[in-house]
């Protein structure tokens, strides 16, 4: 038995979203069970599934370095303060 992760998407809207997971012995039955459990009332138009064993996961430690890169952002505060002082001066 394999555990599959289920992703759903509506046509023309949003990105694929994780909907949950499901157990199935093979890909064919996984698709069928996902349709009958996650798409019972036209909740989406497209379905992606991936065997959990094949998911490539970047964990929190891998992602963490990029949460501390302020030089990649600009908060615009210096210019905003300048504009405000200009308006105040008129």
């Amino acid at each position: 038995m394999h555990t599959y992760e289920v992703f759903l998407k509506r046509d023309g809207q949003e990105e694929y979203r994780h909907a949950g997971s499901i157990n199935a012995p093979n890909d064919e039955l996984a698709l069928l069970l996902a349709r009958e459990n996650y798409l019972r009332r036209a909740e989406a138009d497209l379905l992606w599934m991936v065997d959990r064993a094949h998911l490539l996961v970047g964990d929190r430690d891998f992602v963490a370095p990029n949460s501390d890169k302020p030089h990649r952002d600009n908060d615009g505060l210096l210019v905003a303060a300048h504009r405000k002082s200009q308006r105040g001066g008129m």
Partner: protein
Amino acid sequence: MGRTWSSMHDFEVFLHGGGMVEVDDDMPDEYRAAVFRFIELHANSELMGGLTERDWIPRTPGLRHKMAVLAKTQDEIGHGHLLYMVAADLGVKTRQEMLEDLFAGHSRFHNVFHYPARTWGDQVAICLLVDGAAVPSQKSVYKDCSYGPYKRILKRIIAEEGFHLRLGEERALRIAQGTDTQRAMFQQSIDDWWWPALRLFGPDSKPDDRLARWRLKSEKNEVMRAGWVQKFVPMLHSYGFTVPDPGLTHDPETDVWTCGPIDWGPLKKTMAMDGPDTARRIAEASAAWETTRWVRDALDAAPAGAVT
């Protein structure tokens, strides 16, 4: 991998700040156990409820309602499927172990699934009063649920339970407009199911409820129960039915209905696996598991890999 907390205090500060727990987090053991028990109880109840629905597929009157019962059965079994998946991912018990415990009478399911559904009137009362209690209960869990995987699955479960409740409301209206025999049957079903459905909310919440502190519940039991009484008493009265509560009171100023004293004895009996239909229900569930063994065996024997 996941996040970790140095103490229960730190974890509760995280929860209090609106934090969401995910499956790979190193959550405190007490929280993991409580979330698991909560989801296992829900999963067991969906499975037991789905099996009762299944019993009624051949007996449901009319093709349209028969098809609706088929869909409802599929929904409930599907909910069990998804919830066992979320519960198993917590690593406390496997799905197999949860099912074995259920069939051995070692794990619980909700009180309303310990009673027999004898007539079509009972099925209508269950679909109205029990689903009418399940929807607000599940919504209160969903609203502020701290465990992410459960919250995400609850969203779709609540949407489907909403269909069931509307089905129950339609059935109740139709039976109210039926013959005298049908109305008498439904009155008997209200008499039999009113209190079990009301007791589904449980006794009044304790002031320091751990499940509330950990954001697995966001509403007090007594508040949800009062809302349920306020919804169904006027509805059933307007259809010309009575509610079997001699202590029921009505405040003409506020138009609020309040139920009389509640006997919690029957709830305790069902929690001790000693309800009127407990043994038969468990035997039925266990038999259904055995008679479908060939499907699981066939699935296990199916070739793995891609669709050709």
